[in-house]
């Protein structure tokens, strides 16, 4: 039974080229989608294709994009992380506590924000691995806990960073002239995520667990421990998103965040990562996040009412995932 599963799932070392082609094709498909959307809006509105606007799209992608990077790891294992949205909020609130309330140095506050993200991931991982809660439930619970704690800790008030010198430059500054740091951080984070997913044990085990958890365990991998590691990695990205969000708004807004997790998950799925696990690419996620932001931006530039914007995004998600299923069907 186990042997057949292993062969069927495509982890078989005899078919490496086929596997590689498959991923490339998916990325190509998502990228083509992005190009089509870009082309469409460029023709539809004279104001769309303009560096200022592209910068706006990239900036709008940054926060959800960073969250989506983390979510990719969890989804690769066949899990789901619903806590990234409000978890991000908790991280930005805690960054506010560290920097604005306690007056800690900038570096300490930022690392503190990341640490809170890691802690959220650790708890998610422990609950999934050792308490054997389904990921949906474990992270749903964390989503609520994080939302509640954000409100409690902040006293339901935003925390402002006006007195923290340089904090707003984290997102708004331009190390590379013309490119806001928030976007640079997103790209660097994506590069790191890509390396971790494809070149390290964490990434390989994530994909392997997602493709066949039983087989992975039999081959001697401590699946539970590695799942915890994977959730911690996801949490770190949540923390980073929280810090970037706080910096861009120059304040920690305890009421925001709910619903962002769904946008992140949508970006991951559009990028070709399978919700069933075992198949994930970071480039895909980046493209998925860009598609979401480009679509919203373009529709807004065309003054399409917001109600319809959501309909359009929903349809794109269906199309993207259906294209993926069609292609897989041919493959199998």
């Amino acid at each position, binding site marked *: 039974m186990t042997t057949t599963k292993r062969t069927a799932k495509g982890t078989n070392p005899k078919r490496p080229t086929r596997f590689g082609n498959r991923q490339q094709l998916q990325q190509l498909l998502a990228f083509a989608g992005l190009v089509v959307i870009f082309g469409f809006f460029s023709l539809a509105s004279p104001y769309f294709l303009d560096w200022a606007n592209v910068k706006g799209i990239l900036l709008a992608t940054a926060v959800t994009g960073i969250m989506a990077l983390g979510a990719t790891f969890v989804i690769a294992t066949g899990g789901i992380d619903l806590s990234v949205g409000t978890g991000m909020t908790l991280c930005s609130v805690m960054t506010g506590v560290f920097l604005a309330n306690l007056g800690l140095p900038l570096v300490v506050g930022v690392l503190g924000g990341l640490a809170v993200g890691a802690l959220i991931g650790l708890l998610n991982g422990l609950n999934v691995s050792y308490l054997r809660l389904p990921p949906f439930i474990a992270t749903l619970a964390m989503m609520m806990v994080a939302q509640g704690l954000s409100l409690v800790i902040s006293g339901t008030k935003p925390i402002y960073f006006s007195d923290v010198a340089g904090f707003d430059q984290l997102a708004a500054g331009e190390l590379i002239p013309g490119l806001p740091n928030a976007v640079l951080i997103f790209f660097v984070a994506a590069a790191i995520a890509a390396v971790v997913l494809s070149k390290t044990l964490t990434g390989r085990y994530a994909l392997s667990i997602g493709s066949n958890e039983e087989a992975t365990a039999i081959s001697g991998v401590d699946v539970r421990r590695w799942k915890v590691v994977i959730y911690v990695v996801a949490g770190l990205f949540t923390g980073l998103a929280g810090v970037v969000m706080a910096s861009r708004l120059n304040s920690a807004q305890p*009421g*925001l965040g709910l619903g962002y997790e769904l946008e992140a998950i949508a970006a991951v799925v559009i990028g070709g990562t399978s919700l069933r696990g075992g198949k994930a690419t970071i480039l895909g996620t980046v493209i998925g996040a860009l598609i979401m932001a480009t679509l919203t931006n373009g529709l807004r530039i065309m003054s399409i009412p917001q109600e319809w914007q959501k309909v359009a995004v929903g349809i794109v998600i269906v199309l993207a995932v259906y294209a993926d299923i069609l292609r897989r069907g041919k493959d199998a």
Partner: protein
Amino acid sequence: MNVNSTKRRRFAAVAAATTSVVAMLALAACGSGGSGGGETGAGDKPYVALVSKGFQHQFWQAVKQGADDAAAELDVEVTFEGPETETEVEKQLTMLQTALDKNPDAIGYAALDSEASIPMMTDAESRGIPVIAFDSGVDSEVPVTTVSTDNLAASAEAAKHMAELVGSGKIAIVGHDQTSQTGQQRVEGFTQYILENAPDIEIVDTQYAAGDQLKSADAAKAILQAHPDLKGIYGTNEGSAIGVVKAVQETGKSGKLTVIGFDSGKAQTDAIRDGLMAGAITQDPIKMGYETVKAAVAAINGEELEPVIDSGFYWYDKTNIDDEDIAAVLYE
């Protein structure tokens, strides 16, 4: 196997312990925060239950403050609760039901959806519990009075200042909610005024972004991109207005655009002080909370009340932001 299961148990225990510590922390913080309602109407004091539209938003906290002030002054007991976001109609109805079940002497209610609450309004009436509507009206004969800001007049005032400052040309609106009465009136009063009194001004676009700062910023940027010659933007609540300011900053158009906002909050008052925003309309949330409790007490004592109690609004800008009566109603 034996080793494995002890290990599993140990890790399960660790995870369970960590989770419960977090839960306890949350509870402890809740307790010390002192925001948790208090006792139900068991004592001798009359008990007024307030169900608001929101909770963590600064505006609602200011309403709560006014209600608490009145409670202390008139020696009544007041509880205040509301859903986390202003779209959770169902959750709010549950809160209203719970409030009714506590058998209060009067109820203050800010309906998210006035139609949906009619059965409960009837229930309150049949049990002789007077209902005071606040913030927005309820389509029902039951409420003895409505304490609210005249949103049409308030947004017309915003339009008047926009017209004076801009003179002529294109302007746009970033709204916060196209489904609630308040959200609609904030746009309607503004649009109406411009149509009737400022023929040289054209409203080229109205986009809604749920009062989310990031999304409002992205929406405003898209509008700016599509209309490079735009001369002014009006944001219909705190989140929308701050988002507009963010967009103007990020596109480097500070000072070239007239931004008018609504409500307050530190980010908005800072923007007005720094000249990024021309001015804003503030409601008087403290008075709203105060008048609601005062009307409730009057209703309990069987006094006659006016059908509508206006809780007032003010225009504020750089010149009067520090005036005593303005500063008193602005919240951080």
